[in-house]
């Protein structure tokens, strides 16, 4: 067992560098975090018809997600119950069965073992086929079309797992016909720990002005003008950071949702047309979220940029490597032309050859690789920006940081990471549900984000 006590200091907001390097930390993460969390699988828009399937990973486990004949969605481990061979090698498709390439065992769309060659002759009809279905993922559910799976039956339902984050996501995921992911995902590799991009997306407003300065100068627009020159707009009314019970969080910059698009007129027009719908459902704050730009992560390894229309999952491949899968995030009621326009811009910035994507990879790799050094990884990392000026907000769910540039959602991510790494059972976690903010920040911690910003 890893000595978790030595890894995260919540009061000082520092993390041991070992969390990006040590195999034993990684092994414990697979057991304590990936085996017990809801993990993103796909979006319903990617598998609309019965028989449609998509192959992915949960942690390092290979998974088939399949739309059933009755319209429901099931997920299975992509490994034959005979000798373990992978039964589906396509990224996606439509099928009635998955036939293993080793001995020809055939599994139905529902994972049941339907056919075994020479069953009577070589098994003498003694094979208990009913017990040899593909192993099913214990819980599969969708929120606003985003499909998640969880191996643990004790994990709370998906809506509860997303919790306060769902209210924020609703501002765009429940507007304009709802959200969808379009296209075939791009896939790349990064030789970094899976938490490096997750923490970057969850709360790093700080790096934008420096890491991405070249791209922002070329893109222009509100962020280009502000950040490209190295000067910031007034910080006190720039935006906010949010973190929630189960570690999900985001940073939002007000009013510049479209900022990474070079020609955003049509997108802005769509937002303005649909804005009253959000305000009606979720008030002025909902509208404020809807027109902002978000960098966000869903615990543990799924991230997105709302506004830049980019949706990613970071699949861990050992402690020092990930696969990055990237889709474009749009709203269903957008015209096909607008969806294409947005997709092109999203890929231009955060796709495989993206103008901002390529700025980040190098940093993420070396943040990991430096810890190869024995002395280096005895050190710690710091995420204390904005400590002490965050807490509950009278009008917003979760814990709210007082500014867009802060590390509230970093801290919130590692707070829950620490909790899951320690917890022996879900009962241990659930008993903190009512008191997590007070236990973390002390009683009565209040955000300094002015309520007047919603107006």
């Amino acid at each position, binding site marked *: 067992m890893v000595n978790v006590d030595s890894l995260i200091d919540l009061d000082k907001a520092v993390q041991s560098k070992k969390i990006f390097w040590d195999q034993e930390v990684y092994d414990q993460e697979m057991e304590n975090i990936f085996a017990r969390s809801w993990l993103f699988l796909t979006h319903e828009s990617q598998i609309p018809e019965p028989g449609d399937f998509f192959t992915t990973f949960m942690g390092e486990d290979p998974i088939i997600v399949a739309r059933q004949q009755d319209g429901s969605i099931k997920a299975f481990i992509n490994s034959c119950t005979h000798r373990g061979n992978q039964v589906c090698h396509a990224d996606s498709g439509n099928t009635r069965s998955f036939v293993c390439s080793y001995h020809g065992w055939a599994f139905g769309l529902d994972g049941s073992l339907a056919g075994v060659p020479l069953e009577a002759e070589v098994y003498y009809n003694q094979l208990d086929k009913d017990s040899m279905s593909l192993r099913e993922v214990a819980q599969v559910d969708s929120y606003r079309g985003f499909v998640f799976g969880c191996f643990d039956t004790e994990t709370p339902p998906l809506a509860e797992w997303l919790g306060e984050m769902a209210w924020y996501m609703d501002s765009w995921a429940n507007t304009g016909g709802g959200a969808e992911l379009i296209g075939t995902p791009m896939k790349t590799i990064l030789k970094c720990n899976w938490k490096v991009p997750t923490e970057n997306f969850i709360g790093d407003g700080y790096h934008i002005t420096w890491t991405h300065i*070249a791209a922002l100068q070329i893109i222009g627009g509100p962020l280009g003008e502000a950040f490209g020159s190295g000067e910031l707009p007034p910080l006190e009314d720039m935006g906010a950071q949010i973190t929630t019970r189960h570690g999900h969080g985001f940073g939002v910059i007000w009013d510049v949702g479209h900022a990474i698009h070079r020609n955003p007129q049509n997108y802005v027009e769509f937002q303005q047309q649909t804005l009253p719908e959000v305000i009606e459902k979720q008030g002025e704050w909902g509208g404020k979220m809807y027109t902002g730009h978000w960098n966000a992560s869903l615990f543990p390894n799924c991230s997105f940029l709302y506004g830049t229309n980019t949706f990613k999952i970071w699949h861990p491949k050992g402690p020092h490597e990930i696969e990055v899968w990237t889709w474009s995030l749009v709203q269903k009621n957008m015209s096909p032309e607008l969806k294409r326009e947005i997709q092109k811009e999203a890929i231009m910035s955060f796709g495989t050859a993206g103008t901002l994507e*390529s*700025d980040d990879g*190098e940093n993420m790799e070396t943040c990991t690789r430096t810890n190869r050094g024995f002395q280096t990884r005895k050190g710690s990392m710091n995420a204390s920006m904005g400590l002490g000026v965050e807490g509950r907000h009278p009008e917003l769910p979760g814990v709210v940081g007082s500014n867009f540039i802060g590390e509230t959602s970093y801290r919130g991510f590692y707070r829950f990471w620490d909790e899951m790494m320690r917890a022996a059972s879900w009962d241990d976690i659930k008993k903190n549900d009512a008191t997590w903010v007070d236990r973390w920040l002390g009683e009565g911690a209040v955000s300094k984000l002015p309520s007047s910003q919603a107006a």
Partner: protein
Amino acid sequence: MSELGKLATLELGYQVEQFYYREARFMNQRQHRQWLESMVHEDIHYWLPITENRMLNDKRPEPTPEDGAIYNDNYGDLDDRIKRLETGLVWMEDPPSRIRHLISNVEVYHTDQEQQLSVYSNFHVYRNRRQRDETNLIGGREDVLVRDGDGFKILKRKINLDMRVVLDKNLYFFI
């Protein structure tokens, strides 16, 4: 690509090969602006589609330029990418990475448009970054070249990268 026309003569084939070698040299020497302005047609479609692993019996159509693609660039998009590199503020390229293009299997055909050639070629791009970070990317290109004075300009380029998971951290360079 449309139906193949007549194979180019030895001399024309040689000219196209030399055009590609010069292009590779511009890219390897980071002379992106010179490449864009002297070798790229203003109506270029520079395209690197996303390829998916599908079963042979999968009836879905191949990707088109209407689909999302890693590169789906016009001249202005390429110009933006090069402008970014020219800012001097791209930290990942400072110190600069090394890149080498090897071009082979050049097949040059006439088309029904007198001024246009249809050309296939293969590439091997070697990238070496920082101390010991290296990647090898191999694939093919399908070009339409337009005659331009004594030389050519690239009107269309489709890049077929021979990998599903791009075994590199990004593809922010030209092929």
